[in-house]
């Protein structure tokens, strides 16, 4: 399943770029994210709780960033297993372009699901994936808009 879209973010490309690699921002932005661990610069593991149609599951998965052109583009690939609910895997190419008052983020994703998600939730996956993507960017955008919280001193 292909998913394409773009989002206008009110922050400059450098800030957006940094946020894409920021564990805290991502943890807040990913819908249903229960935990997110950064293993290295480019590798994360996550536990995400999702409901797609009648199937709800806790997905454990890994996300890797590759093809990195700093400040401009990268590829996010991930694979999550939801036990008996099945699995989801996919890759998204993300590109950033400066705009007058912010950054235009374009994504081009290819997602595949399997197991119960495919056999039962297939008709709902397109709509759900779009909804989850929208939620991610809304959260991401909100996180960017918030001033950096002061960490404990």
């Amino acid at each position, binding site marked *: 399943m292909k998913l394409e879209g773009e989002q206008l973010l009110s922050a400059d490309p450098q800030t957006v770029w940094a946020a894409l690699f920021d564990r805290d921002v991502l943890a807040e932005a990913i819908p249903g994210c229960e935990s997110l661990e950064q293993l290295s610069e480019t590798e994360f593991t996550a536990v995400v709780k999702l409901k797609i149609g009648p199937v709800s*599951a*806790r997905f*454990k998965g890994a996300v890797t960033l590759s093809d990195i052109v700093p400040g401009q583009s990268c590829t996010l690939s991930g694979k999550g*297993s939801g*036990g*008996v*609910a*099945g*699995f989801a895997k996919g890759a998204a190419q993300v590109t950033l372009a400066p705009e007058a008052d912010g950054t235009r983020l374009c994504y081009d994703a290819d997602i*595949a*699901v*399997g*197991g*119960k*998600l*495919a*056999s*039962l939730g*297939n*008709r709902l996956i397109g709509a759900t994936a779009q909804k989850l993507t929208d939620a991610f960017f809304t959260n991401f955008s909100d996180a960017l808009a918030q001033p950096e919280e002061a960490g404990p001193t």
Partner: protein
Amino acid sequence: MTLHIGQSQRRENARRHLAGRGRFVSDLALPRMLHAVFVRSPMAKGRLVEIDTSEAEQSPGVVRILTAAELNARCKPWVGTLDHFAGMQSPPMSILAEEEVLWTGQPVAMIIAKSRAEAEDAADLVMVDIEDSEPVTDGAAALQDGAPLANSGARDNLCYEALLETPAVNEAFADAAHVVEASFTFGRHTAVTLEPRAVIADFDPSSGALTVHHGTQTPYQFQDVYARHFGLPEGKVRVIAPDVGGSFGMKLHVYNEEMGAVAASMILERPVRYVADRLESFLSDIHARDHIVKGRMALDAEGKILAMDVDDLAPVGAVSAYPRTSAAEGNQVIRLMGAPYNMPDYRGRLQVAFQNKVQTSQYRAVGHPIACAVTEALVERAAEVTGLDPFEIRARNLIADDAYPHVSATGYQFEKLSHQASLAKLREMMDPDALRADQARLREQGIYRGFGIASFVEITNPGAAFYGVGGARISAQDGAVVRMTPSGDIHCAISVTEQGQGTETIIAQVVADQLGVSPERVSVTTGDTATTPSGGATWACRGAGIGGETALRAGRKLRERILTLAGALLQADPATLRLEDGAVVDVATGEARITLEEIGRVATYRPDTLPDGVDHSLTVAHHFAPSGYPFDFTNGIQGSLVEVDVETGIVRILKHWVVEDCGRIINPLLVDEQIRGGVVQGLGPAFFEECQYDADGQLTNGSLADYLVPMACEMPDIEIAHIETPTEDTILGAKGVGEAGTAAAGAAAMNAVNDALRPFGARLTQTPMTPLRILDALDAARKQRTDP
């Protein structure tokens, strides 16, 4: 005296089932029973890296989580090949995947818990790490050179191939005045039984006995399978199939889950229950059909069929089903082609391929709908090119009713069929002239109706020819024990089984007539290896023909016993006596001499009053194996009338006709029920039912929300007529009928749809004929017209 054979009688169990008093495996609860749920591969192909059960083990109610190492060790792997399919290969299969997963839904771990719900919750917590690889999904691609293996245990992806050829087939095509050809695609579908697969395995370590309550058609086959694969003496294995909520062939195959329940019960020494939920049924019940067929037909200038040449590609999943194989359907497809017709020459080629999907195997009317649809679609094209009417071209080609015995070009032997009489009868019922007039009138109003017909033969009453000759331990004979109770009632325990079609009812009718009692006095027991004699049970339309004959002969044996006893009591020659209305009657005068009740009383309570040496045992056993023809073929013809909305592609099925000849009819009501149910299971995959997979081998419509089964409102009135040509191989003369409706319904419907679309030059050759496919065909025809 009224004979009950030939009379309509309601199914004996219908009232009980309606009253909610059915007793299905899924209703049964045993003390200390545990519940099984399977963790399944979400991927079609891959390497099992790790199964993490640690979290699931802590889940409430979990008793044990079984993985391949423990479970598979209990059970000898099974191999789905048969010797008479020369060169066939299929890798061994075990309960759980070990290193490689082969289809989406293959079980990889088994959760045993105190309730199904708790087992399901725990299954959610099992983490399976599978390194996925590219699955083989397309049958044609699977057979290309260098294709990846669907199953690494196989030499290549070719499970089986066969070629049938008459010496002069090439000449027949070379000399033909006309050759018509087409390619067909028949979608995968599945059985969708009302009651899903269900099993309770109960191993008792104190006696070493295994009792399996199993919703199956073939208890004896499973007794043998469980004994051999779990290393138990056959006498210690009992299989009980109580009420079974539909089966249609789907419940006679060996499945990983049922074998898992038995293994788990032996490990845990407690009863283990597994009942598939509907989602699991879609993922794990056998699927049916899935054939891509290229067909050609050669005709002379008068429209006489000279030969057919067909090529069938049948992808069947990653292993062949056990113990009947997944090659049997393709084998029947190529053997049934052109079967109703005088067709001197033939070539049929079959390739059965492995792929990463759930296996396909025998389902109602194995192979028949494919062979019939291809043959009848080609006959329809032949009618077009020769300018003959559909009835006329069939009249010219169907085997004459007085030309039997007849051997088909594919080697099938027909004892006696009634194709021409069936065709004449159908013409009378359908009134094609009136239908044509209606069609022309309605077309002017933009309404597109069409009708189509399809002749068929059906294979019934198989002896050992199907499986026995290939080394399968599947009984070709059946057995009955008939006894008279002390009150003069009759009991029959018989090896054929009941799944809702009324087997027990017809057996009672047959036995009743042999013993001169009403069927209400005959009780029938089926489906328990401990209480019925051994036999093949119910499949391939053998219940009435073989089971009925077994019951008849057993009943007659008991009759002789009763008459001998009566003769001794009455001091009369038994030859002067017969049984009628529950009494022994004097043949000459018709006078009742002694009731069965009185004979029962004397034989049971006062045998001391009988003359010396008189055998007072009122229980007899009889086994019957069909001899003579290897199969009793039946025949018939079906007609379909449809209306196609050419704007939306939606089809209304307006009417369906069936003329059928199943030999002696034991119960007209149940025969018609069988035909109607069969027609619906033929029309379902013709229009609605399809298991859809994506390129990754994921089943994408595995629920009743997405998979369409026909409902009453989509189905037409089905008008049925009969011709009776009894087989002379048996006293009873009955042949099978269970698959007749399914055999030709789709073929007739496809011809009807194409007749409706004729003004547009559009043609369907793929099932199901969905609105989208109909619109695509219309679109293709439009493009062809505007841009030739």
